[in-house]
């Protein structure tokens, strides 16, 4: 059985290594489009955490939901206390993310990213949606 503390340390190291690798790839060019989507030097706060934790798998890169079980998160996320409860002790299908794998600090950054997502574009500006 894997030692819990060792596991935690390894996890943190992996996160750090992952971040370093991601940032290294970002520094090489303005925008990178890989499995983890599009990242850039000016990605908003918390975006890398959102991507790295895989939130986008169910909720989309803009928190718009990808259908299925992942509900829409943004724009206009639910208040932080409710958000934290859903992440730590989810009442529905979402897995529980404890502070051991998702720190409070990181969770706040992810929330900040969701808050930064601009309001839904006006559909009248999008011909395919406005019916023009």
């Amino acid at each position, binding site marked *: 059985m894997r030692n819990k503390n060792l596991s935690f340390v390894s996890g943190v190291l*992996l*996160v750090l290594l992952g971040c370093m690798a991601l940032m290294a790839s970002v520094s090489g060019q303005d925008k990178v489009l890989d499995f983890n989507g599009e990242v850039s030097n000016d990605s908003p706060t918390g975006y890398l955490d959102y991507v*790295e934790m895989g939130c986008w*798998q169910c909720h989309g890169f803009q928190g718009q939901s*990808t259908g299925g079980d992942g509900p829409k998160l943004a724009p206009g996320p639910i208040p932080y206390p409710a958000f934290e409860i859903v992440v730590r002790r989810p009442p529905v299908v979402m897995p529980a993310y404890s502070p051991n794998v998702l720190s409070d600090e990181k969770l706040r950054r992810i929330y900040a990213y969701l808050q930064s997502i601009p309001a839904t574009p006006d*559909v009248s500006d999008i011909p395919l*949606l406005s019916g023009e």
Partner: protein
Amino acid sequence: MTSRRNFLKSIGVGAATSLVAPTKVSAQTAAAEAGKSVSALPPSHYEESMEMGVPEGYTEAQAKHYFVQSAGSDYMVDVMKTLDIDYVASNPGSSFRGFQESITVYGGNRKPEFLTCLHEETAAAMSHGYAKIAYQPMAIACHGTVGLQHAAMGIYNAWCDHAPMIIFAGNHMEATDRRPGAEWSHSALDCVKLVRDFIKWDDIPLSLGHYAESLMRAYKIATTPPMGPVAIVLDGHLQEQDTHGVVPKIPAYTPSVPPHGDLAALRAAAQLLVDAENPVILAGRAARTPVGMENLVELAEALQAPVSGDGRMNFPNNHYLNQGGRGLLRQADVILGLEKNDFWNTVNSMRDLVHRTSTKVVRDDVKLISLGSEDLFIKSNYQNFQRFQSVDLSITGDAEVSLPYLTEEVNRLMSRSSRAKAKARGEKYREQYKQSIEQARQEAAIGWNDRPVSLDRLSLEIWNEVKGRDWSEVSGRSPASSRLWTMDRHYHQIGGSGGAGVGYNLPASVGAALANREHGRFSVAIQPDGDALYAPGAMWTAAHHRIPILWVMHNNRGYHQEVMHLQRMASRRQRGADGDAKIGNVFEDPFINFATLAQGFGVYSEGPITDPDDLGPALQRAAAVVDGGHPALVDVICQP
């Protein structure tokens, strides 16, 4: 016994027919009317040459040593022709070489036409997709051993999805007659045993007369709801034996009338629905054909009851009674489930936690009615059913043919007050429908310009390209923002694989597109990347047989569902998966270039497209290729 030249005269009542359901007026009448007669074909060049006797330069003894006058497999093909089987999809194999030659040479490669497949799973999935558009089965032919093993996954999906399929499996029973080598390793005592758990019936004919009767029986079993695959073993010796032109009479074929539910039980169901304040209809594999869809619309309108579907085209999505969501179920006092094998899943919710718990999502006093043929379709080993759901009324019968009787009872029982109640319900659902369209539009706008391309953007760019055509979405997946498409034809969506066996979409889309080709329809498939990699050779089959279809790759570069499963496991175990969740689940280093892959199979392609603004023009160019009668693929890097 009759000679081959006279055999067609001996055919009794007409041939097999399409699987379009009996009309709402009279199932029996429609079944009788649906019978078609087959005209006799003139003798082929091969037939004439062999019946001229001993070839020049040979003695009679030499001719008997080297040549056959009339092959057993010719008769096998003649029997197929009486059933109007249009196609045999196959990856060729020596265990059915005689059969193949009889199809292509003796039979003129027409009705049935031999479709060249690069893998038996492709053949099976093509047959599966074809049946859902053509409403009649496509045959497949494969080695009884190595071929059937390849085909097994495709057959399993068809079984789960209630799709008819005629499987011909080549085998050599007579051991002293086998050639050394492959005819031994490609023979088995009971080759169909491998797939018997997920087919409806099979037989090993030992004579041509036995073959004819068994194929008729097999076809009847496959196409009688609940439908499914059947298998006939083609013995090598039987295929290659010389009949000397003397063959058994071909039995007449009459399609079976599908079984409908008990009329008294349907009357009781109608009473419950009419008395309900908030009746809800849940449609599983309810509408097998366009008639089924019309029947369901009539029932829903009679009750003004909302209908929630399962991905198959049961109900037009531009109808205000097309509704969904858990809220619908929470308020329901009577729920009618049509051909649902997942009733429990629908009225309960299970949480994927360490200790799995479930909760009801319906009222405690809700009345549940089940109408369908699922109870007739259960086997023990492969459990294509879900948890047992207790219901208040369980009616066994084909939903599609039972619906007219149910609607008639509903209309008869509707009083003035129940009609007024129904009218008020209808007004409420009209308003909710309008709101759902507006909400779908708003939600689709989020991430509109994202890279990777959002699924809503992908979906609506495709819709923009196909909406002016007579189109058919053949991927088996419901597009994102499908609320914003107009889906009101049965062929607008063919439903999923049934068994969730990955690898179905690409070849099934080719089979469905082949069936659409006869109607001049534009076939489009939103093709998942992982699925496309199981049997990508299906692209070549489409190119080779000039099957027009537009594949738009939903290329998210991995098995995202599996990524999420790993994340769930790692979170549960307090480890956090982070980058590790990609291991085993992601196609990177290198990325897979589907446009190049398609080109290699002779398919026009574009991509990979990463900028959503490039998508519309690329789709337009590819659609022009499809309009010209060829397949085309547009690879798009998408969000999961």
